[in-house]
């Protein structure tokens, strides 16, 4: 253009001139560009930053949740009684399956049905039946291996979900005591139910930022504070529990009994070392659960304790001072008329010491003791030892038994109270009463938890009375007593057998409850055990012969497991080697 200008006006030589507007246009253009860039940047960063932030968050922010497993239940030595293991549930979104043409490849559905062990029609039915539904379980509690396989099938609209499954390694041995959880991991029976909130945790949820390759690069706020579940240590000794269950099962089968229970208590702490019942069930295979098998009969079922209550009548009489431990009671002629009714012994035992009254289980002798003290005092002794009240075990379904509270009692009724009729107790209550005798008259609350510190007990009978009664009870398992089958070589047993008729409408029927309760070793008590066999149908029905042998097996085995020193004629061996080695 300059050239053009030159040619046009060649005559007037002109100074080359700047054409300013061009510069301004370019500069203006560049400035505008800059301004728009800065403006845009400012707009994005300052005025309207939320949209892009949102876009970024959509791509990087994730919510992670940490699943927690229900707490473990262990016995006092750490043996597992209930363990939760993570499993998966496979579910389908029928709407999504239908929308994504999920039924195109039927081989995959066939493979899914095969791995779930279900007919393919059933699986398809559940997805097809209601195509607008958004959720249906296909199968719950599948193993991680099966879950992996299903993931690889890549079925549209079929998903996996974490859940956990509870295993009970103890199986039927601890079934009623531990109880079970339902499929949603909520405890519905036994310890699982009573301590459900303690055992249950809640998953924690946290917002995290994830990088492109899926790693967590930033932890942001916690959406939901998780609560970690707690473990539970029971007072149960699984070895004793297992031994007790084996013996109880054998006893129940041999006597064709309807049911049975054994409770083993530590006399010094009130801890339950074993609590077993028959018939039992396998909590790991619940296809045909029968509710009568799930009851923890040792604490829910009551019965009339029969002769096993007699030692406490002796204790009450000694406590009241109406007899002395050396007294002789005349029971001749072997029967006694009270009101219009008769109390009788199997034979005329003549003059008996208190120990012999217990050894022979003389109804006449014990009735005389009971009649020597006011009835309220007798009932008071029973009540103070835990009859008619809850034991403190704190499990669902415990029964307190019945002990009548009225003002007028006939002499015959007072006599029947002394040999265990007219009141009901649970196996656990009876065991607690015996444990109280065994530890010198201190009543401890029963605990199913392993205790960290010694429990606070209540002195309910004087130590000397408890000691005397226990020494009298030793004669029960010695020659001439009713419980010779409960005798153990090596450990003196203070026990008492009992046989009570079961009450039916309008009186007493033909069924019996056979009992044996005892404490051992009598010289230094450790355990109190009660064996109850309900309705034995064999030839034998006496407590001493039905429940006695099981008592002896469980007691001797348990004491051996606890390393309680037996009384033997053998010489004790000193470990001279170790002693010498230690002295060096």
């Amino acid at each position, binding site marked *: 253009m300059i050239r053009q200008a030159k040619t046009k006006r060649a005559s007037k030589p002109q100074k080359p001139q700047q054409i300013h507007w061009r510069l301004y246009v370019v500069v203006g253009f560049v400035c505008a560009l800059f301004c728009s860039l800065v403006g845009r940047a400012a707009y994005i960063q300052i005025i309207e930053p939320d949209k892009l932030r949102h876009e970024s968050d959509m791509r990087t922010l994730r919510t992670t949740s940490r699943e927690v497993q229900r707490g473990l239940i262990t016995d006092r030595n750490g043996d597992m009684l209930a363990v939760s*293991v993570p499993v998966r549930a496979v579910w389908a979104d029928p709407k999504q399956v239908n929308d994504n043409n999920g039924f195109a490849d039927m081989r995959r559905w066939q493979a899914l049905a095969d791995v779930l062990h279900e007919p393919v029609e059933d699986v398809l039915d559940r997805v097809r039946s209601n195509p607008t539904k958004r959720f249906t379980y296909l199968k719950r509690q599948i193993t991680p291996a099966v879950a992996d396989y299903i993931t690889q099938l890549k079925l549209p609209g079929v998903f996996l979900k974490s859940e956990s499954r509870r295993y009970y390694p103890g199986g039927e041995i601890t079934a009623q005591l531990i109880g079970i959880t339902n499929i949603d991991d909520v405890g519905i029976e036994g310890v699982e139910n009573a301590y459900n909130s303690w055992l249950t945790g809640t998953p924690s949820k946290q917002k995290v930022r994830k990088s492109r390759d899926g790693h967590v690069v930033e932890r942001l706020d916690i959406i939901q504070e998780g609560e970690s579940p707690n473990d539970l240590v029971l007072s149960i000794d699984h070895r004793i529990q297992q031994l007790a269950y084996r013996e109880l099962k054998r006893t129940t089968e041999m006597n064709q009994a309807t049911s049975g229970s054994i409770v083993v208590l530590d006399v010094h702490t009130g801890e339950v070392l074993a609590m077993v019942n028959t018939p039992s069930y396998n909590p790991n295979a619940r296809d045909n659960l029968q509710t009568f098998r799930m009851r923890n009969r040792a604490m829910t079922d009551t019965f009339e304790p029969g002769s096993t209550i007699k030692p406490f009548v002796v204790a009450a009489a000694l406590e009241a001072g109406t007899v002395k431990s050396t007294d002789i009671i005349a029971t001749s002629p072997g029967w006694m008329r009270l009101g219009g009714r008769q109390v009788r012994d199997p034979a005329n035992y003549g003059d008996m010491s208190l120990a012999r009254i217990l050894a022979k289980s003389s109804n006449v002798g014990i009735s005389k003791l009971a009649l020597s003290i006011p009835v309220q005092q007798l009932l008071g002794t029973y009540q103070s030892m835990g009859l008619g009240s809850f034991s403190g075990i704190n499990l669902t379904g415990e029964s307190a038994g019945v002990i009548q509270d009225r003002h007028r009692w006939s002499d015959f009724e007072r006599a029947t109270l002394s040999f265990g009729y007219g009141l009901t107790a649970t196996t656990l209550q009876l065991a607690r009463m015996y444990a109280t005798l065994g530890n010198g008259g201190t009543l401890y609350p029963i605990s199913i938890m392993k205790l960290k510190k010694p429990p606070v007990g209540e002195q309910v009978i004087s130590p000397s009375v408890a000691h005397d009664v226990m020494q009298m009870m030793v004669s029960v398992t010695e020659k001439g007593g009713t419980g010779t089958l409960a005798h*153990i070589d090596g450990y003196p047993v203070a026990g008492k057998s009992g046989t009570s008729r079961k009450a039916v409408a309008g009186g007493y029927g033909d069924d019996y409850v056979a009992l044996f309760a005892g404490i051992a070793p009598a010289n230094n008590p450790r355990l109190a055990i009660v064996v109850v066999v309900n309705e034995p149908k064999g030839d034998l029905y006496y407590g001493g012969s039905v429940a006695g042998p099981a008592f002896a097996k469980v007691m001797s085995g348990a004491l051996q497991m606890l390393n309680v020193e037996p009384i033997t004629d053998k010489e004790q061996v000193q470990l001279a080697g170790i002693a010498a080695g230690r002295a060096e």
Partner: protein
Amino acid sequence: MSKPSINLPQIVLHDLWLHKWILLLALLVLCNAVAVVYGSHTTRQLTTQWDQLLQERDRLDIEWRNLLLEEQSQTEHSRITRIASKELNMSRPLPSEEVVVKVP
């Protein structure tokens, strides 16, 4: 060009020397920026590592639970009793047969 010759590098250096504090601050700002980048990078790496360790812990916990179950079934008392009595011909002594060994 009659003016005395100018030593340009000298002038530049002189000028820089005059603003040495600003320069130092600029350098520090740069270092700080790099440190921030490095720090956040390390944090991210550590967070990733932490997360992986947590996952590893969960995996080990599951494995532990399964091993517990296996241990429990292998050491079940009735199984031990059966093996001891049937295969090893052992039996539990009666209390009266026990010999007490006193450790002094």
